[in-house]
């Protein structure tokens, strides 16, 4: 399946050139968007995603959907990257070392079950 807008965004993250969409009022959002979800402004520009983010919350999922059968248990987290928040699977960091405030970078890996691209958070030093 092709998801125009989203696929290009994920590919840019994989290339280390991640971006978000900014409206004139400074709200951040992620593509595909034609207007700002926070204020409705139609003028959106691509801005560089900050190199690191901070984990705001996370969960270790033990009962997965079939698409994550071979990943479980896995840690899904929400992390803030400047004006946007991203949701991804934490890799290369044991679950008991994940905490609120942990600094991470964002990348793209493969879902072990489906082989599809997966947004991941990796440990990062400030």
């Amino acid at each position, binding site marked *: 399946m092709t998801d125009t807008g989203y696929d290009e965004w994920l590919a840019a993250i994989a290339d280390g050139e991640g971006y978000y969409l900014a409206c004139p009022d400074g709200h951040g959002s992620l593509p595909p968007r034609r207007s700002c979800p926070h204020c409705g402004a139609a003028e959106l520009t691509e801005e560089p995603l900050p190199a690191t983010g901070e984990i705001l919350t996370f969960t270790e999922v033990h*009962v997965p*959907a079939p698409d994550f059968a071979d990943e479980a248990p896995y840690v899904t987290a*929400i992390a803030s990257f400047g004006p946007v928040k991203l949701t991804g699977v934490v890799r290369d960091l044991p679950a008991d070392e994940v905490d609120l405030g942990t600094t991470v970078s964002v990348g793209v890996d493969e879902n072990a079950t489906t082989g599809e691209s997966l947004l991941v958070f990796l440990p990062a030093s400030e």
Partner: protein
Amino acid sequence: MTDVRIAGVGLTKFGSHPERTGRDLFAEAALAAREDAGVSRDDYEELFYGNFMGELAEKQGHQGPVMAEAAGLDCPATRYEQACASAGVAFRQAVATIRSGAADVVLAGGMERMNNLGTAEVTQSLAIAADELFEVRAGVTFPGAYALMARAYFDAFGGDSEDLAHIAVKNHANAMQNDYAQFHREITVDDALESPVVADPLSLYDACPITDGASAVVLVSDDYAERHGLDAPVSVTGSGQGGDKAALQDRPHLARTPAATKPPTPPTQTPVSAPTTWTWPRSTTASPSPRCSRSNRSASTTTAKVSARPPAARRPATATSR
């Protein structure tokens, strides 16, 4: 604007009925509501029906007319899908339709069938209420979404798994008094704390059970109830619906659910002087989807306020103020 009365109600036992079709579940609830109401079949003008995952559970779309037939009705029938608030939204639309004068008698309700699928398939089916691109592809399940919120809540306001365990203990104790409840078994705090982890920090008893069930209500206008001498002492005095961003990552607060506390939206709130008023805050009263029988993560929540009064009471003058 007319007031809305509840003329009849019907409910299946909630639980595991993997062998029963959705149409049979809804038929049981709808026929019970119709019998309770005693309204002539020809007087039903609309069916508003809520269902979330019928395409996945039964490969059945276009459920409105299927369920009208199941209910023994011949009237326009519309399905509402709004995740766990599906039947709540159907109810709300029924109230708005009667208030507007467009109909005098509406059957509203909902049905969910889930146990014919396995746990993994149900987990996948419920997850489609989350944002597919940004959440489901990152492994967010429904217990997972609540777990993300629970951990953020603990961080913002304090609390821990033991506090949640008390909720499960209380819920199970309440169920002992309810013939329609899925489980009739009391549990202890230790039972809850020692149960298998579903999505940390949530374990088995923090997660809603997978449930099959249906419910229905017959709603009528004040005028219809009086003309037909119906025993319909309960009025719907308000209905509200709140919204939020679909994905957790797009919400300003991960530990709050502002959609659940937004005030009722005009014009469906009418001030009524009634002897008793109480809130009826859970759309799950009419929708057994497991996701919402706890505080609402949903981007859409519905509430209804009802009040009891004598069947023949005249609409108070204040009711016309909106």
